[in-house]
């Protein structure tokens, strides 16, 4: 029986680099490689694809990833765990099986984990009187927007992944499991832990390392505040987690790869997109990040210990995606001399065009690109003359036709605007799917696991 499980990150988001995953799988001597492909909004986009085509709705990259990595993974005995099933884990699983067969990987087992998708049960839940108030605003009128809902996925825990591994899966593909689930699942499986109070601290530690590794190079030098001194960021190694049975762990990367692992890269990512650090609410448990001890124990090697936590909460986060109108936007740039004056005049001119076109807007937002687009009111106006500046406009509308008027008005300024104005390609209107975060009782979610064989 193992006392240390070795896990590597294979992807930090849909769009991440594949080559560091290949490099890590080849040389990392991994027991598991875990992949996160999903962001908050991704499920709604995937669900919409599935509505158009019942065979779509998974992260298409997951099949290409598995095709590239499965032969090497089988040779090395590394299991591949991802949430790339998105809104359609079953079809993703079938595609991976087909791919495995083509590669001659006969007998390879692909575990499909479902149960996060509550879209078809939403009416049932509302009828049962389960209230789904907005987690941030407290609004409680989701029933009124029912006809605009396109997705409803709960963040599920790693128990489906554990079950798939117990039944011999070599590859596991899930829907909306928590981002750290693909790390927590294998650790719980290897050590035979259950979600009880006795294991709460150690599971909290597994969640913590999953949180650190789930964005891949974000903990090995990517996104770093120390970018200026960070070596070879474009060749950053993806993280390796060595997780011990006692709930301590070391995080490192392959020798010779770019980037770094040190107390700073770990601290920065520990604090990424969390709320109250004493209560990092996750479906598998609740780590207390104020308990963690970090030690640099070698080159590119940080040890994590003393992690405390509480058992899993009774509720799960549910994100409901709903259609929410359109956004039309445009951007134009102005040269010295008096670049700022030109931008101001262009803004007035645009507002005149909006009025003439009868634009029906929910909200209109202007930015000065190069001055306040990123920091808004926190950015002081420059007290010197700018070489150039941009004007960005973004407008929220109810319909596509209204959003189209924004593009038209921006095009009008090609000749009607201040002298010297330059444009890129006008931007197309885009539909908006907003997220409605809420909580559901854990008891309404039931995971199911199916093992497909190549």
């Amino acid at each position, binding site marked *: 029986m193992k006392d240390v499980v070795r896990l590597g990150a294979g992807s930090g988001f849909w769009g991440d680099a594949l080559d560091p995953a290949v490099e890590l799988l080849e040389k990392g001597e991994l027991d598991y490689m875990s992949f996160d492909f999903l962001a908050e909004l991704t499920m709604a986009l995937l669900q919409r694809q599935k509505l158009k085509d019942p065979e779509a709705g998974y992260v298409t990259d997951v099949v290409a990833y598995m095709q590239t990595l499965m032969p090497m993974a089988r040779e090395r005995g590394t299991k591949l765990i991802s949430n790339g099933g998105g809104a359609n884990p079953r079809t993703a699983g079938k595609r991976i099986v087909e791919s495995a067969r083509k590669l001659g990987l006969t007998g390879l087992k692909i575990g499909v984990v479902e149960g996060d998708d509550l879209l078809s049960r939403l009416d049932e839940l509302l009828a049962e009187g389960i209230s789904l108030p907005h987690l941030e605003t407290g609004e409680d009128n989701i029933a009124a927007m029912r006809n605009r809902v396109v997705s409803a996925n709960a963040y599920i825990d790693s128990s489906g992944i554990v079950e798939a591994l117990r039944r011999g899966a070599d590859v596991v593909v899930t829907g909306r499991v928590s981002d750290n689930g693909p790390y927590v699942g294998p650790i719980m499986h290897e050590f035979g832990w259950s979600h009880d109070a006795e294991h709460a601290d150690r599971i909290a530690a597994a969640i913590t390392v999953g949180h650190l590794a789930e964005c891949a190079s974000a903990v090995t030098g990517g996104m770093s505040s120390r970018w200026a001194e960070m070596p070879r960021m474009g060749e950053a190694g993806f993280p390796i987690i060595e997780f011990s049975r006692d709930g301590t762990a070391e995080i490192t990367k392959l020798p010779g790869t770019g980037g770094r692992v040190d107390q700073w890269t770990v601290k920065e990512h520990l604090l990424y997109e969390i709320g109250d*650090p004493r209560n990092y609410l996750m479906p598998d448990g609740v780590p207390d990040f104020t308990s963690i001890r970090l030690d640099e124990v070698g080159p590119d090697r940080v040890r994590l210990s003393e992690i405390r936590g509480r058992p899993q909460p009774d509720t799960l986060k549910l994100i409901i995606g709903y259609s929410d109108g359109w956004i039309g936007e445009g951007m134009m740039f102005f040269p010295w001399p008096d670049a700022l004056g030109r931008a101001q005049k262009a803004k007035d001119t645009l507002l005149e065009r909006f009025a003439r076109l009868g634009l029906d807007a929910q909200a209109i937002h202007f930015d000065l690109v190069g001055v306040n687009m*990123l920091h808004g009111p926190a*950015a002081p106006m420059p007290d010197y003359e700018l070489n150039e500046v941009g004007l960005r406009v973004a407008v929220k509308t109810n319909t596509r036709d209204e959003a189209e008027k924004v593009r038209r008005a921006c095009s009008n300024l090609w000749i009607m605007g201040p002298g010297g104005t330059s444009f890129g390609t006008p931007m197309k209107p885009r539909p908006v799917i907003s997220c409605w975060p809420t909580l559901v009782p854990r008891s309404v979610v039931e995971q199911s696991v199916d093992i497909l064989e190549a």
Partner: protein
Amino acid sequence: MSHLLREIAYVRSGDKGNICSFGVIAKAPEHYDALLRTVTPGRIKQLYGDFVKGAVHVYRLDNIHSVNVVMEQALGGGAPSTLRLDQTAKSLGNAILRLPIDGLS
């Protein structure tokens, strides 16, 4: 001349729904007290003005000489529907480094 927070702290910033959260990390343990004095809900609200419409929370992590800042209703509706370019608030947290530090010798 006054010192700015950028001299003593690192930042990493991101989003959850309509919330922007970011970690502020002291570059050295001896700077942690100055960081705590500087990064307060009141000063954050003042700095970000109408970009932040909700409450601001500052959580201490004494173990890593850092704080986590949570700004509610701070993204113009959240990543999918915001009219801002920085939809996921990756840039927004860095503005905190503009704050002048209190009492740094």
